């Protein structure tokens, strides 16, 4: 994909990526980090973090996108906590929250209901991820062209 063309507007977008909790499967997180970086975004990889640390980093770094990776089954328990904290700190509407990993279909709906903007499974394509983020950024008025 040509990052300089259609994704020009993504250049000023800052993304924070974290492994949710103690999950050790870092392959997906690092791959998505690469994808977003190649699409022109400014990517910060936080590594394994608990919800409190993630929100703390969101406050410090002020990204437009928060991406969480969970393949260990904690997507609901810890995933919900992240958004709760985001709401407490009034960080919910000013950022796009994305979660991906091994997530059963029913839980996908639950996560969207909790307030995640996007949920991705193992077979999500590069296009889906980038376009998904882009659309959500624009819906939330975070994309400046």
């Amino acid at each position, binding site marked *: 994909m040509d990052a300089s063309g259609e994704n020009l507007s993504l250049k000023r977008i800052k993304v924070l990526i974290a492994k949710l909790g103690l999950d050790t499967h*870092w392959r997906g997180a690092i791959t998505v980090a690469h994808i977003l970086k190649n699409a022109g975004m400014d990517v910060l990889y936080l590594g394994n973090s608990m919800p409190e640390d993630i929100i703390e980093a969101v406050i410090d770094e002020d990204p437009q996108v928060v991406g969480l990776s969970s393949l260990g089954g904690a997507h609901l328990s*810890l995933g919900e906590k992240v958004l709760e904290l985001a709401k407490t700190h009034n960080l919910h509407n000013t950022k796009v929250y994305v979660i991906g990993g091994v997530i059963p279909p029913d839980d996908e709906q639950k996560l969207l209901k909790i307030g995640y903007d996007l949920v991705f499974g193992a077979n999500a394509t590069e296009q889906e991820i980038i376009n998904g983020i882009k659309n959500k950024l624009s819906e939330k008025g975070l994309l400046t062209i």
Partner: protein
Amino acid sequence: MQKHENHENKSLEALKDSIIQKGVSKVLEERLAAGGLKRQKLFSEEALKEIKQKYEEWMNILDEKTRQSFSRPFYTILGSKERLPRSLIYTPLDVSELDYLNDIGFSGHPPFTRGIHPNMYRGKQITIRPIVGFGTPEDTNKRIRFLLSHGATGINIVFDLPTIQEYDSTHPYAKGQVGLCGVAIDTIEDMKLLFENVQLDTLSVSLTTHYPSNTMILTAMFLVAAEEMGYEWRDLRGTVQNDPVMEAVVRTSPESLPPTAIFKIHVDNMEFLRLNVPKWNFVTYNGYNLREAGVDEITEIAVAFSNALEASLEMMRRGYQPDEFLDRMAFFWGIGNDFFLEIARMRAARRIWYKLARYILGSSSSRSWWCRFHVQTSGISLTRVEPLNNIARSTLHALAGILGHAQSLHVSCYDEAYSVPTEAAHLISLRIQQIIQEETGITEVVDPLAGSFYVEWLTNRAEEEILKEIDLIWRMGGLTKAIEMGWLHRKIAEFSYTDYKQIQEKIIKIVGVNYYESEKEDHQIDVFRYPENAEERQRIKLEKIRSERDNELVADKIEKIKEAAKDGKNLFPYVVEAVRERATEGELFEAFKQVYGLWTPLVRI
């Protein structure tokens, strides 16, 4: 086993230096030549000449289009990286140097290409060793007994993330993750519940501990639990992983110990278990998880062997003879999609390990020369789309594992991309192995692909590539150094991304996903639901233990671990004493952290 205090450490240092400077392959070559190894070619010069002539004649009569397919690049397979392009056809010309006795030989004899036992699966069937672990020990115990009653012949315990990462179920980091991905173990009491009504002196138990540090803690708990259940340590059979690469590279965690500390604990485990639990396999170099994280089939083996070499040299520096510990080293490979390469590299692995164990490390007993391994079929190649297709994929992987003559096998379940397996999915995995074993005759003949020009060529090529990569690792000073420099982290990050890109670009084909794309949006299957309240149930048990044990005694035992660490002593016996008094896993990890400090791996985007 006696510890040899006066081992020649100088010559060991010299050996290490020469490996680093010349590369393992060069040292091996020199030592083989010094041993006066004579090679006898299987194919005569005349025969080869005639085959070459006929081959060219055959090529010349082919039309242009047919000939083009000879040079078509070998298509890229998930998990492989085009290191070994293939021709259309293989002939004796591709294996012209083949020496039957030196390169292939007989099963159970050097170089063990054909398997480690003379009668292979006729003598000992493959161990059916399913992975199991979820919820509390009580929950997992039920599934263990289900699997054993349906024909499993071994058990592979996986632990939940807090247990693997060494936090108690009550730790803030454990919140929401207790009993997910594996079983929760906090104290020796949990270990006893896990194996309630399981016969520990006849069953071979694999504890998928991954890291050296949790291997020390969890194995100590297992040993003391077994002891309290009435078993003797000398009767226990089983395996742990105890792999430094798992802890320093494959793991990501909020808190990691430094690579040198991990390596020290790794060798402590080997030493203690060797001396005290004679039937225990104290290390399983885990290529599987590394490969799943993102390296190819060559790096997988090269890293594991470099790891094993480094640990062996350290054991020798501590005064042990190679024959005193090599017989209990084991390996663990992932089996992916490149069917023939998978088989070939398992054959190559046995041949290489034999040479390394004999000619580099200088062992003399044939058991020390065995490259024994467990295999698990690939998880990353299983799809979420049309999940039942995964049964076909796993069956092919399992077949490769059996043709490669693995000692034990776990077939990944078809619902891998959804969750922990359901009981039904688990049963299918067992059945796949039983069908191959009992219905097809595949296991009746030893190494049935030996002598195939293609498979022998591929075995040779795999051997060359693995040795080349081992040399590369040693040129960096060995694996621990290479890890500290970030080499392996970088490799994984690049590999995973390339794999992903190639899937997107359809260079790597995945049926139903990017080829013959599934029309169905919804792939409803039964998905496993974790048992309820595992966290709460663990918390109640743990709080009870904490209130009933002698807390001063526990604190004292933990203090002794820290003192021993400062004195550079083997920590295992001190950990045994602490778990006996009901010290928790988290408390022991805390002690390690206090002594060794924390390390941040070099993960760069």
